[in-house]
């Protein structure tokens, strides 16, 4: 059973650099990250209807530096706004993996917390943070725009205080997340994003990145090596 009250992510924060200037720079970047959040709303369910008022003149998210973006590449926050069916979950995971770190996940509505009113459905995934590292849940059916904005502000505070490291957990404990995904989707599950390669490239791997599930993945994985630019006669 996963605990919701305090979402269990085991990410280690990045090493503090000793150079005082670098520290200042890091804090500046963190501050800017908290003040400029591009969100990608994955409108899976009814919660999406609360976002337009949150963005438009009544509540105006842009004054907090939050604005909608279109593709996962550009976005920082993935808003999952409602129940996630197993089929949709695959696409949510694909979308999450295509986002660029630091990236945050906000689960809106009770459905993402525990299945909500779909708790009995065989086709709906129940606890989102088993498959993705969720930063903030906004419970409610549906949460009002104020609640959504409050959730955003919580996330802003977390980032500003240097606590928004849930995304690192995905790289650091990839085996755990992959295991849960394989449990639902079967052993031949694979996304086009090379998470292990990315973890290696950016030095985010730990022992828990690898495990039995990544071994299963490696057995059937389609190659994800990019086409290298080469001069070969």
């Amino acid at each position, binding site marked *: 059973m996963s605990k919701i009250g305090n979402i269990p992510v085991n990410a280690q924060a990045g090493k503090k650099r000793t150079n005082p200037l670098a520290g200042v720079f890091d804090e500046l970047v963190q501050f800017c990250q908290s003040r400029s959040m591009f969100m990608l709303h994955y409108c899976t369910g009814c919660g999406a209807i609360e976002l337009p008022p949150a963005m438009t003149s009544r509540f105006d998210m842009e004054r907090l530096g939050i604005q909608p973006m279109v593709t*996962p590449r550009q976005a920082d926050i993935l808003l999952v706004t409602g129940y996630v069916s197993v089929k949709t979950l695959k696409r949510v995971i694909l979308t999450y993996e295509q986002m660029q770190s630091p990236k945050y996940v906000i689960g809106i509505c009770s459905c993402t917390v525990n299945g909500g009113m779909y708790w009995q459905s065989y086709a709906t995934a129940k606890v989102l943070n088993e498959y993705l590292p969720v930063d903030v849940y906004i419970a409610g059916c549906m949460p009002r725009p104020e609640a959504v904005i409050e959730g955003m502000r919580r996330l802003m505070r977390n980032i500003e205080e240097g606590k928004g490291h849930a995304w690192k957990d995905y790289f650091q404990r990839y085996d755990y997340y992959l295991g849960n995904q394989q449990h639902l989707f079967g052993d031949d599950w694979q996304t086009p*994003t*090379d998470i292990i390669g990315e973890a290696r490239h950016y030095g985010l791997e730990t022992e828990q990145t690898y495990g039995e599930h990544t071994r299963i993945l490696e057995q059937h994985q389609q190659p994800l090596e990019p*086409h*290298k630019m080469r001069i070969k006669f």
Partner: protein
Amino acid sequence: MSVLDDLLLFTALASVAIIVVRRFASVSKLSVIVYALATVLLVKMSALGYGGEPIYSSFTLNVLGQNLYWRFDSLSWFFALITVVIALFTSVFMSGAWAEKYCQEHSTEAYGLLQAALVLNVLSMLVLLASGDLLSLFIGWELVSWASFMMMFLNQDKVARKAAIKYIVYAMAAAMSILMAIAMTYSMTGSLDYVQIMQAVAHLSNTQIALLVTLYGVGFGIKMGVIPFHLWQAAAYAETPGPGAVFMGAISARMGLYALIVIVVQIFSLTRVAAIEIPYTFLNMQNILAWVGALTTIIPTYIALKQNDARYLLAWHGVGQGGYMLLGVMIADSIGTAGGIMHVFNYATYQAALFMAVTAVMFRTGTSNFSKLGGLVTQMPLTFMVMVVSIIGLAGIPPMNGFVSKWLVYRALLLDGEPLLFVAAVIGTLGTILSVYKLVHNTFLGQLRLEHQDVKEAPLSMLLPMLGLVLIIFGTGVMPGVVLDWVAAAQNAVGIAPITHNLGGIELAQGGLDMIWVTGVMFYGFAVGAIVFYFLGGKSKHIHQFDNYAGGHFLTSKVRYHYSNHFYAGLMHLIGGWYKDFFKKLEQALVSLVSFLSQLSENFYRSAQPAVLVAAVAFIALWFIMSSFSMPADTGTVAPITQGIQGGLPK
């Protein structure tokens, strides 16, 4: 023996040698050496490029009391240099791996014939460029036509053969037009020598000049592929085997421009042409020619935009770029003419490089069809670089050389106060930008196809000439003064005030151009951009092409995720309906008319008694001979015709 004799004799002997050894493998090496030596001989004449006196050939002929002679002046030298250097690059390009593959696919004989065709083309062009009077010009002209035809006829493909036949029909029409013009010139001036005609031109009436300019213009214009004679060129050049297309596309059609400059600019002089007012319009003859140039930049360029085959796209651009040269020359001031003549050089360099790049892609993948290519940049990065540099040249964007010549043309149009021509030229340039992006995107960018994952870079023998051309494109873009020297000499030779220039461009009180500064600042900008990009951001990771945004869809190699078909759909919604194939229909109508007439005469012949017909023909011939005896020999046949026209046209 002058250097020109050496050059012509050497090339002629080399042609014989290449034809003799065409079945041996060494023909490639031989041809490279031949063109290299020819280049050396041209370099020996390089005084011409800086305003030297014309060099005469010691070989002359006396026909009908006319002295046929050959000579090189600065303009000929400029064109000859381009011809021989492009031939040199082409011969290197076709000497190595390409030759092997071509011999395997066709035969050694076919390859030898290609080499022979190339050298004959070079020889005939040199003869044409060296011509010193109208008759030798015509001889050269015919040689060039048939040499081109030989090159085109090498491809045994049905489409190619058809295109070649079409070309030769057009070329014959051009030859007839020119021959008629020469005959009329002779009857009007009594001479075929340039200098004597030049003196006699002053005494000719406007109508006579107009008639001559029209006839010469039609003849030379057909070779250049100007509107409305643009239909033959693209297919004929595109279907020629790879290196042949490189050479032909780069320079062959420019022979028409050379002849036009010699006749219209040098002999008739543009001020004289400009004095001919077209009745009931605000235009004069010079405007008409300039507008032909402007339309030639627009229409073929937008036909190129619609092509779905890289070779055809380039060949159509070749037709379109000819329009800039004609337009530039027809502006008649020193800047515009310089732009037009310089564009011949610039165009030859990047068009050759582009055709080479496309041929290299065809060499590796076997196709130039846009629907079957894509994503080759990772496999053939150097060829991609060649293509990018060349398309920047073709589109006329700094810092490549195409920009300089187009800038000169624009500048001249601006100073001349020709808004519509200026807009026409810009519309042509914008269309070029659109279609060259289509070219580079659909071959090199986008998704790499599964079957092209093991494609290799073009072999060195093909890459080296491409890279050499890239150096020239960039080098003469940064330092246009090098070429402008030769252009100024050429301008001097045809009697136009030479352009004042320096190494970096031209200096003018009302806004000049200094490419050294422009390039410097651009590279400074790129340096700043690179610093911002590489040092201010974190490191990035290269990813597989299937790790791509597709609205949450999982991409596989089974489904193509690539946009190349119907590339400018939105624009075509609007302008698609404007492609009415007007000229094609006109051409078809002509063809139908001729075939109808021939059918008619054939039927007439079949139904009538042949004996009666023979008798009739014999009678007409007899009458013609008799009547021509009774008239004075020199002006008798032509003068009534011209007078008739003169009477018909209000002055």
